[in-house]
């Protein structure tokens, strides 16, 4: 196996094109355990962290751009981003320990394509887009269109994500991410729920997105829950409808981390709780800083 450390996107694209056995990586927090567990070693690993464009959290005129290889600790450490998108930062901040946080990235979390990836539901509800380097330049797709199944993405061979685009949140908008894990840290989500709510001046919901993790082969949007929220004042009936819709939207498996019945039930519970948190944040316009344990159910 050879290690490469390109400093430009074009150089990385070229290195990938030279051999189909090469892979890109950012924090290596998935690739090294997978190699240890017996997955074949790639011919070459291309370290994306030396490319400036892939590193860092930048404000733009219309929102934010987050480099795909940026350590997630830089998201949770960015007070402005946390203030505007606390749910996104909760999801990103729940990927592993502090040790992992200094290596894990949105690009890696998305492209590892685990159904349980903590940052993905929160990216989806915020309408984030992935800018993908291809042989001939870049293309931009919605984050929810990247995962194709467990361990699979829609990226073509030779492609990799350069950065994520995130539009500024409208007024009176709040987001939240909650997950259920058996411990309080260091676990893979058994269920994850991301929610974004926008309210009007009277407290009526004008826009809502709900996305679930770990309950289907890929992240799932829950349009029925979103429809139940829009036009409501996030009252008890709307919340019950959200819970029912979230449970119904699940297509989970029984595995060592949870059962089908458990995942269905808890998806509804967490969706409802996340709606409440997001709505509260929307009422306060943006909400506060996530605490160190923020986001644990």
């Amino acid at each position, binding site marked *: 196996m050879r290690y490469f450390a390109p400093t430009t996107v074009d150089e990385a694209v070229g290195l990938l094109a030279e051999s189909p056995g090469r892979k890109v990586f950012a924090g290596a927090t998935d690739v090294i355990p997978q190699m240890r*567990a017996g997955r074949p070693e790639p011919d070459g690993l291309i370290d994306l962290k030396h490319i400036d464009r892939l590193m860092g959290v930048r404000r733009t005129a219309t929102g934010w751009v987050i480099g795909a290889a940026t350590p997630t600790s830089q998201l949770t450490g960015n007070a402005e981003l946390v203030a505007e998108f606390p749910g996104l930062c909760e999801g990103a901040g729940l990927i592993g320990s502090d040790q992992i946080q200094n290596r894990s990235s949105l690009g890696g979390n998305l492209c590892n394509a685990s159904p349980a990836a903590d940052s993905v539901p929160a990216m989806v509800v915020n309408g984030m887009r992935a800018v993908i380097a291809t042989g001939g330049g870049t293309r931009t797709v919605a984050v929810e269109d990247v995962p194709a199944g467990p361990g699979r993405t829609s990226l073509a061979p030779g492609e990799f994500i350069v950065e994520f685009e995130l539009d500024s949140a409208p007024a009176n908008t709040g987001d939240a991410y909650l997950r259920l894990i*058996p411990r*309080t840290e*260091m676990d893979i989500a058994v269920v994850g729920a991301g929610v974004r709510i926008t309210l009007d001046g009277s407290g009526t919901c004008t826009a809502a997105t709900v996305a679930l993790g770990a309950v289907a082969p890929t992240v799932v949007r829950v349009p029925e829950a979103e429809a139940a929220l829009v036009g409501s004042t996030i009252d008890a009936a709307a919340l019950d409808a959200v819970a029912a819709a979230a449970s119904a939207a699940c297509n989970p498996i029984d595995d060592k981390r949870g*059962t089908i019945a458990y995942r269905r039930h808890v998806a509804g519970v967490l969706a409802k709780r996340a709606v409440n948190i997001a709505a509260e944040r929307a009422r306060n316009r943006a909400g506060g800083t996530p605490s160190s344990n923020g986001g644990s159910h």
Partner: protein
Amino acid sequence: MTIADDPATTAPGYKWVGTRPIRPDGFEKVTGRARFGADLMLAGMLEGSVLRSPHAHARITSIDTTKAASIPGVKAIITGADFPEPAGNPTDQDMCRNAIARDKVLYEGHVVAAVAATSKRVANQALAAIEVTYEVLPHVMTVDEAMAPGAVLLHDNMITKGVDPAPTEPSNVASRVVYQRGELDKGFADADVVVERTFTTKPVHQGYIEPHAAVADTTPDGRSTVWCSSQGHFAMRAYSAKVLGWDPSRLKVIPAEIGGGFGGKTTIYLEPLAVRLSQKAGRPVRLVMGRDEVFKATGPASASKVKIKMGANKAGEITAAELWMAYEAGAYPGSAIGAGSMTALAPYNIPHFIIEGFDVVVNKPRVYSYRAPGAPQSAFAVESVVDELAHKLGIDPIDFRLKNAVEEGMQAPYGPKYQKIGFRETLEAIKNHPHYTAPLGPNQGRGVAAGFWFNAGMNSSAVVHVNEDGNVTVVTGSPDIGGSRASMALMAAEEFGIDYDRVRPLVADTEQVGFNDVTGGSRVTLATGAAVVEACRKVIADLRGRAAKTWDVPVEQVEWVDGQAQHVDGSQPPLSLAAIAKGWARTGGPISAAASLNARGVGAGFSTQIVDVEVDPDTGHTQVVRYTTAQDAGRAIHPSYVEGQLQGGVVQGIGWALNEEYVYRADGTMDNPSFLDYRIPVASDLPMIDAVIVEVPNPGHPYGVRGVGEVGIVPPLAAVANAVAAATGQRFTDLPLSPPRVLDGILNGTDAN
């Protein structure tokens, strides 16, 4: 008691015993200098890797190492054929076959071959090139499957022991044990309430953070030096020798620092393989397990199934108990069913009972000791039912236990009479603790449970040297797993009446000190401590003699007080230890003494614990919010490390109760061999663990010591389950109490059990 509210206070009459000095090995450990099993590097050392069975049960039909051997850098390959036919008693033979498979593999992870090469990378390449063909056999994974009629047999010739008349057909039941008293029917007739339930637990691992590691350097004279981290290098020598077919004395085992064991490092895994590889290669070889190998191939604690029926009368007296218990042994006989049976009812004085236990082989790694081996599983059942009986009778659960608690002079269920014990005192300590009456919040519940452990004595040796500057070296052969060097130094300082800093304790190798049994059974401070005290007293007797000679008086006129020899009538200026050492050439030469003993006077240990949990009614997630443990330590030599034992045992028990379990796939392979999915508690899962040290001195030990290492893990399984029952109104009988299981119980009830 915490450090904050218990500043270094000595026990009455003692200067050092009961204080909290810095441990002698601490500086090495906080600076990264301490050398653990995998840290040794020798010139020319090769790296090894072990090929393990991918199947739960299979016949090995062929092994071809030709291709692997031809890889450049491969220096030695061994298989079962490189070891002599297993010899000795059946347990020894099983150990030999567990160390490396011969014709059959009995669990995923069973050793098939090993390689030594110039690098780990080359060794792993060679492993992949070894061609093994297997005939895969059906497997049995639980006691129910293994005990079912017509079950697939692991061992064709295993006849159940302990059954009269002996069965004529082989089975997967290795042995049966029975303990009984009185007339069961009468006992249940006397009962006003009876509770009957079945409890199960899954295999759990000791989870020490340091994986097993061994370095061996075998020389052409047929001797080998082994460096390894273990709980007993004398045992490693003896067991390795059995597998190799050597006399133990051909092996010298040097103890590395040990990164946790909890019973799991009292046997061999890598050591004989490293010796044989080194012999074949003619160079030193290092073998280090990965975490997946630790999970798949080293001994966890038994999964268990316990059927229990217990009755009590309105006066709150337990009248009868009936237990049927089956423990998974793994691939070879040897679960702790005996200890599990003996400890099950040990805290209570019950007139009529029967305990029947079965040791059952299954296609899983051979279980090994884990902290109070066998006791937590049976205590989970007994303490859950005791809790339920107390509730049914409307009696406070501590009062109910006090009513039935064993005391000095009562007969233990397994035979002998209890000596001085402190069970009652631990119950009262909990009852009087502010925790017991503190208010609970919403969705919270409180549970109590108690536990018993024998503690062990066994064989220990120690040597005490006086150095030429008057300082003292204390040499033992008991690996220090949690601070025992500090307790040895404290007892020696107390004996000599010199400062703790003037005593240097160390753990010597198998050739430098007399025989020591393993660091296990909570025995080191008691037994090795007794050997140290005895050696110190021999040295002090010698020192008095030296002073008598110097002063030309009878030795009876010399006392040893505060680190110096004094004449009884004060007629001579006192002679300090340093002064005697300085002049030893004139009084008979250097001063040292050895002591070897089989420790008597073992004091049993009891613990009572109380826990508050909060259960999320919508997700089934359980959070431990407060925990208090009271344990009889006899005498705490170094209270900080006693507290550490209490706290550590509790937290392992919490893990066992809430989330830890081996998860197997249908093909008999382990689905969670990592710290990601084998969930030991992390810091954020826990509150502080309030450790109350109860001291009912053990009259069998010079300082009153009782073992403290193990009993702390006995109560938590039931304590947590009792708290969850209080919080949810549902009685859970299957561990772990993971969120899916608890939510299912909340939503659907647990009465199906």
